[in-house]
């Protein structure tokens, strides 16, 4: 685990998959990112990231059921694995730890 780390975009996608639960697939993730962060991302970039996260074991995927929408094509639904959750958590904790180390004083001195 120590050697694995996530890039910014990977972390973002992984988090969104966690948020979406059972509804996480390519387009939904693009839409969710746009809605929550106002950030336009590429569908292809999202796909590539999803596959990479799956390779790393933070996500798993299965094919959803067919619907009448999208030309009857099935969705590939991604769900976050325990390893993925642990990774997110570890990253968040690491960041908080670091955040705590920034001295208030210095922060103020920069402001004033």
């Amino acid at each position, binding site marked *: 685990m120590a050697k694995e780390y996530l890039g910014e975009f990977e972390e973002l996608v992984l988090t969104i998959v966690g948020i979406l639960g059972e509804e996480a697939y*390519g387009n939904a993730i693009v839409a969710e990112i746009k809605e929550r962060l106002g950030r336009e991302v590429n569908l*292809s970039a999202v*796909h590539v990231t999803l596959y990479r996260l799956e390779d790393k074991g933070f996500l798993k995927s299965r094919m959803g059921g067919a619907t009448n*929408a999208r030309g009857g094509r099935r*969705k*590939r639904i991604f769900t976050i694995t325990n390893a993925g959750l642990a990774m997110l958590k570890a990253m968040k904790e690491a960041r908080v730890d670091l955040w705590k180390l920034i001295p208030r004083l210095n922060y103020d001195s920069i402001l004033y």
Partner: protein
Amino acid sequence: MKENRLPFRFLKWFCPPELYESIEGDLLEQLESDIKEFGEKKAKRRFAWHVVKFFRPGIILRNRFSIQLINTMMLRNYITVAYRSLWRSKVHSFINVAGLGLGIACCILIALFVKDEWTFDRFHTKADRIYRVWAHEDWGENQVFFYTTTPFPMGPTLKENFPDVEHQVRINSVRPQVKVGDDQFTERVTFAGQDFFEVFDFAVTTGDSKQALRSQANVVLAQRIAKKYFGDDDPVGKTISIALGDTFDDFTVSAVTEDPPVNSSIRFDILISDLNYPRVYAERTLTTQWFNITPETYVLLREGAHAKELESKFPALFKTLIGEEDFTKGKYTVGLQPLTSIHLDTSFPAGIAPVSDPRYSYILATVALLILLVACINFITLSVGRSIKRAKEVGIRKVVGAVRKQLMTQFIGEAMLVTLMALLIGLGLAVLNLPLFNDLSGKQLSFPLDGFMAGMLIVMVFIIGIFSGSYPAFILSAFKPVAVLKGTGNPKTGKQTLRKILVGTQLVLSVSLVSSTLVMRDQLSYLQNKNLGFDKEQLAVVQLNVSRIPGLSRLSERIVAGFEKVTQFKNELSGIPGITGVCGSSHDFANGNWVFIGYTDDNGTYRTFYFNTVEPDYFDLLNIELASGRGFDKDNPSDARRGLVINEAFAKELGWDNPVGKRIPGKKFPDHEVIGVVKDFNYESLYTKVKPMALVMDPMIVFAGTENVDIANSPIPKLLIKLEPGNMAVTIEQVKQVWKKLTGGEEFAFSFVDERLAAQYASDQNLGKIIGIATLLAILIGSLGLYGLASLAMQSRTKEIGIRKVLGATERSLLVLLSKEYVYLVAVSLLLSVPVTWYLMMQWLQAFEYRVAIGWQHFAFAGGISLLVALITISYQTIKTAWVQPADTLKYE
């Protein structure tokens, strides 16, 4: 979504199948929402772009590459099996490898030849900007002049008037006497423009190329000449004397160059600056005479300048330079020919640089490819024939799970392996035979292992391997495993007709080559033995030198002076017993054109003829027959003054039935009279028809009346010496002594006329030899193939023969039965080869005005040879098969 098929097809092509559906779905969903947001048109454009964005490593590299390029496990097995199968049938493998090797060797050598021909003059770094100036005049009445040598003022004029011309270089050669210390030589000395080394890339070994030709007193030597004169000493700074004008002038060696490369059109031994022109040519000639052509003019265009554009500016200039009347009436045109096209473009007349016939390249390249084709056909027929033995292997492989593609790869790979072995042998053969090939082709080719060679070899292995391997691979991989493994009957080994067509093609090629060789041999021996109308045997030529001493600068005067020298020699030589006759003549044979005269006759028609100044005993010495009238009479002074002897062609052109007593119908010719007509003799080579010709004792009869003179070769007299057969070496030595006595240190230039005549046809002689060798190879390779094929055919017929024997067939009838098929093949091939040979040989023969006819005997002989070779080749197999005891072949049944 029909209109979106293309993006999806693209996606499907690169996308891993397991990811495809969801990606496609996502894309479609995105499209739907885009349509709502942007409208249909824009959404579709965005859609295509979205698809393209999926073409990224993160997706593409997710493909599992199912086509594994090298399956190492199987590869080892393939190699083992290939090795075993090659080893098991040594004869067939030998035939394949040796045949292909020979074919490849031929191809390599001929490719070197063709490459050399096609890269002539390309070694100059500025080659693409160098042009040779040509001019064309058409005065009507068949007075057309097209030349690539130019007037002297051409170069300087172009340079002055057009800024696009960066440099101009004039080049022409003379053959003066050169004195080095006490030795005197007749050498080819070349005038070259001062910017010679700026334009051309001839490597200078010592000395300064920039300044080498800037001074009138400088001379540049080619290495070969420098060595001849100064041995291993450093020649730079040494002095040599050249008799350009009336006297010897001293020149200082300023630089030495490497000998011009063999693939250079521009050749030289000794270079001097064109500042020396005034020493040889009159000032008028150098500055204003636009219809006196001597040097080749080369121009180097500025970078970015276009030849066509420059040419379009020429007419305006030349109209003013040569006068409107001449310009319009003569349709005077000046143009530029790229340097790189000089060697092979026969549509331009030859200037000083020789022109080669591109047909030789084509003929040789065709022959090389034909030989290779014959070898490839061997490979195909033998592999298919042998496939019976490998049927079981194919069956087992298929049962174990080999797919057809794998089997085809295996067999094509095997073909490549054989080709690779053949390539090594071919390379070896090519390297070993390069000196021989150089002798035959008259070239000095080397064997560079450069990019061209490597590329050619790689391409060759692939093309040959795939070409000769794919058909057997196709046949072999098609075997049905059940049929072959059950062992009931052999599988069909391809259509018998196809194999016959292949062998037939081989035979057609070899028969064509054999008959072509026969035709060529006939023509070449005809060239040697044709009665030329004069006796060329034991006839020697010695060139005399007449310097331009003061008072002897006019050509006609020098000719007369030359004949005085001839008289001196005659007196001295008459005492030598080995000499039967001596005679002076302005021209000899096979030494370039005679002086060519043009005049306008009384009716205004432009006519031309060649002429030669001779002594009265010319006719006797050369055994030239008279058709009517008489030859020159030594004791009749009027003959020397006004006598003229013409040939039959001359009389025929003018429509004279009774020429004696007539005169040339041009007003300007002084008083003269035709006193005799000689039968046409071939004073030119057999490439050209005998043209009108006149013989005189006094050249002024002709010179005074001419409008146009083309002096391609010096008319300074030569000594024609008729020797007695036998001890000629001694006689020649005696002539040399006389020469020394009369001329001092001058170089003794002696040659035999028959040798020179033969040398004219050297390139065709060599082509004949090359084709002869190629024919031998084709027959050899072809019969190897036939042998292999016959052995296979016999094997499959052993049982049939056994049964026939049991039923009472005689051995003789069996031999006929077994050979019949091949005789039939040869006969059909012979028929098919006739038009091929006919066409090819007519192409070649057309170069000769005097030629043999292609007759049935050539084909009959070629057919006979081919049949004989075929029967001998298969005889071992047929006899073996016919003699075998039926019990041996039938007992296992």
